[in-house]
């Protein structure tokens, strides 16, 4: 997730505050940073950005293929595309794996602040319109 979290010149690892209520209430928003359980390693957690939700179409930047995200799944990607192992590798993941939304950075002190949501690149994601 560099440079959003743990920027390269860091002295401390970032500590983050999780908002679990939005996941319990099934309020997912594209562009939020989320914590999820790794789909292939049950005891590990990942921090990724939520790119697409069920029904959206996402293109893979390498192959240019468009994939439709199945019901109950989502598309997650790291901000550091070159170093991230994410949905571009293992495909859409179940929404049930999401544990919480990253709402703030708590530590180190100079980085305290709200986590910015960043809408996905419209040239890569076709968002499902309600009623379609």
């Amino acid at each position: 997730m560099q440079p959003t979290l743990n920027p390269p010149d860091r002295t401390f690892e970032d500590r983050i505050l999780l908002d679990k209520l939005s996941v319990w209430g099934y309020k997912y928003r594209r562009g939020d940073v989320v914590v999820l359980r790794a789909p292939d390693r049950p005891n590990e957690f990942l921090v990724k950005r939520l790119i697409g939700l069920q029904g959206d179409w996402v293109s893979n930047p390498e192959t240019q293929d468009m994939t439709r995200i199945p019901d109950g799944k989502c598309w997650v990607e790291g901000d550091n595309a070159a170093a991230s192992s994410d949905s571009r590798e293992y495909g859409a993941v179940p929404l049930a794996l999401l544990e919480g939304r990253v709402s703030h950075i708590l530590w180190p002190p100079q980085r305290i602040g709200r986590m910015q949501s960043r809408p996905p690149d419209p040239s890569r994601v076709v968002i499902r319109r309600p009623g379609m």
Partner: protein
Amino acid sequence: MFQALRPLAKEMLERAGVVVQFGSFIYCFGTYVMDVTTCVGPSMLPSFNAEGNIIFVEHISPRLGRLKAGDVVTAQSPRNPNAVICKRILGLEGDRIRVPPTMPRDSIRLVTVPKGHVWLQGDNQFVSRDSREYGPVPAALVKGKVVFKIWPPSQFGHVESRIP
């Protein structure tokens, strides 16, 4: 006036504290230790009836990774984060399993379960919608192991682990 209310307010705060502590204890116990839920639907016939069984679920084995093929488990549905499914584990990661067909005329498939996933399937193979439809399920979604059926009383008993 406010002087007179002070002991009352203190007492109310203390009681509220007890209620909150009790609620937290119940929540943690139900999430991490054991729980009683219902299992409704025809997909697990004949092990569970379609009208619904009340089942006793323990959450310790999934957390410690002590599940084995043949166990009946509850999991969050990969199709809908809001739903809980109750299925039997047919294979754990790395297992090579024979998957029976969904339709009576289809043939048996051979599947290798990928890393960190489990293959979930209902006992009633022609009705159940399971891993044959949505593929292997991340093991992180498995939340509990079904140990006992406690209702209806005629079916009370231990839930056997078996490989179909």
